[in-house]
């Protein structure tokens, strides 16, 4: 087990390093590093000074080492637009995005799992077909389109929910979150729903497929042959087997939730990291872009590692084989 973790850890660090090299090369070798680190309106004298102080006249590999060194100290440059350290900007906005992503994930699970279960148990019925068509809609409709429709229906037409911004925050277990206030919840619902629809469809389909695959298996028949109640057969024997892969997939998809938050945050003007990166790209605020990419990739890699470990803990076959 420990060997497994160490191996995955080394792999993750490798991926991180590789990505940092890629980003670095992409930005510094292909792109124009001066443009990255110095605002567009600098005078030639300022540029020359920047080149000197930033060490841009040094060989590439030395620059890379400096870059990594700075990064490990938490210095990822200063934003042109906000004139703050990039990392500070990102960390300020990260909680909003994480909140959104987390609520979206929960929504996807609490709607997707039961829906998929019912669809799988009644395969071929009207209900099943409706759920399946609905799920195709869920993942083939572009994310932003779903958001627009939600705004159109619930904000413009029905006027029930606000279409932009984050509501009031409250304190729960020492964390500032929208979940604590009614106003916060009202503002949170539409964007979280928007973000979760894709995952909801995914979870529904996965659950349904899992149920259909598992139901004809021998151990389900055997469970019935033992005279167990149908409820126990479904919820203990079938569900436990399909939950493992579903949870793994969903866990890995959490990272993509954070990425897709860029779209949701743009539509709903949600003050998170996603909106920040889009604004930064359009305003060419490159230090922030670089910082965002590195942080997000790092988060991803860590996330994948954690999910891998959890999976091996959940599935006794994997765990005991590795032991």
């Amino acid at each position, binding site marked *: 087990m420990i060997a497994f973790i160490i191996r995955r850890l080394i792999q993750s660090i490798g991926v991180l390093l590789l990505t940092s090299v890629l980003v670095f090369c992409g930005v510094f070798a292909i792109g124009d590093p001066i443009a990255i680190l110095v605002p567009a309106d600098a005078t030639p004298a300022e540029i020359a000074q920047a080149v000197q102080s930033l060490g841009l006249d040094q060989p590439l590999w030395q620059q890379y080492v400096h870059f990594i060194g700075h990064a490990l100290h938490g210095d990822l440059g200063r934003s042109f637009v906000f004139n703050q350290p990039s990392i500070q900007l990102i960390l300020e906005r990260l909680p909003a995005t994480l909140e959104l992503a987390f609520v979206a994930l929960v929504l996807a699970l609490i709607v997707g799992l039961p829906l998929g279960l019912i669809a799988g148990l009644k395969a071929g019925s009207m209900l099943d077909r409706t759920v399946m068509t609905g799920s195709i809609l869920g993942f083939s409709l572009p994310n932003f389109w779903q958001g627009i429709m939600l705004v*159109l229906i619930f904000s413009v037409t029905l006027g029930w929910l606000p279409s932009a911004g984050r509501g009031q925050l409250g304190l729960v277990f020492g964390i500032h979150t929208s979940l604590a206030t009614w106003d916060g919840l009202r503002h949170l619902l539409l964007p979280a729903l928007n973000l979760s629809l894709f995952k909801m469809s995914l979870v529904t389909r996965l659950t349904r497929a899992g149920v259909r695959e598992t139901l004809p298996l021998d151990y389900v028949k055997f469970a019935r042959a033992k005279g167990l109640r149908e409820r126990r057969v479904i919820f203990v024997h079938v569900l436990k087997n399909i939950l493992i892969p579903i949870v793994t997939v969903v866990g890995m998809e959490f990272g*993509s939730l954070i*990425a897709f938050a860029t779209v949701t945050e743009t539509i709903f003007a949600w003050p998170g990291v996603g909106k920040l990166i*889009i604004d930064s790209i359009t305003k060419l605020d*490159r230090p922030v872009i670089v910082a965002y990419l590195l942080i997000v*990739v790092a988060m991803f890699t860590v996330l994948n590692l954690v999910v891998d470990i959890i999976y091996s803990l959940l599935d006794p076959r994997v765990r005991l084989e590795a032991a």
Partner: protein
Amino acid sequence: MRATATFPSWRFVDRNSTLGIVLRSLFGKPAVAVATCICLALVVIALFAPWIAPQNPYDLAALNIVDGRLPPGARGASGHLYLLGSDALGRDMFAAMMYGLRISLGVGLLSGAFAMTLGTTLGLVAAYFGRYVDTLVMRAVDLMLGFPTILVALMMLAILGQGVDKVVLALVVVQWAYFARTVRAIAAVERRKEYMEAALCLGLSHRRALFSQLLPNCLPPVIVIALVQIAAAISAEATLSFLGIGLPVTQPSLGLLIANGYQQLIAGFYWISVFPGLLLLVLVFSMNIVGDSLREALNPRLQK
């Protein structure tokens, strides 16, 4: 062994039945048949847009700003019928949508085609040469697939800047991995089959063996993936354009139209955003249904 053994000509028999399966799956079920017809119709419209659109929405001289924000079905100052309304600048939405469809479909097909070529070639090469090449390519694939498409696209566009070619490039980088992975899996199986051994015994060069023997047998699943990937590419490009980091304003795809209309939406002029959105929806949805149906039909495991 007869040296005159003709190469897998028996594969032609197989392909015929594959074609049969494909046609049956596309036109057998009513829902799928409708989706297929819609896809074909949209492709035709996109191809012939400049000739069949009622107005050229990008010819500034033809626009009349007085006709701006007219609801669907209204007549403009010049008597022109705005079937689906007009946008803030007086552009006929119907026409704008046709041109937008053309661009969206064009970018999607282009990036899909490149991704397919790149991915398929890499997948074939990985399966054919095995060992180090295989490991290298598959690690790259795993890496690519570990990140969500939008993140990779963001990364590419942030680094390279904006423009049609950059968008296509970003989409290709995002998509090649899907092709490579599937092709490699199939090719790895086909690679071990006897006709490949025969090809090598007869001294075919690697290139010929790869492309004239291995490739045709890996094609059906590739076609299926291509369809779904093109839909995904169209969707992705629309998202990027909507966010403002995709295609430039001079090449307005459906995504950009939707973005432009979004602000008008809150003010109640819904048609500027909703209709292009519906068109995008119909396009992507139909392609997904067709792709889904094809995939089920061509999946050997589900074939009884």
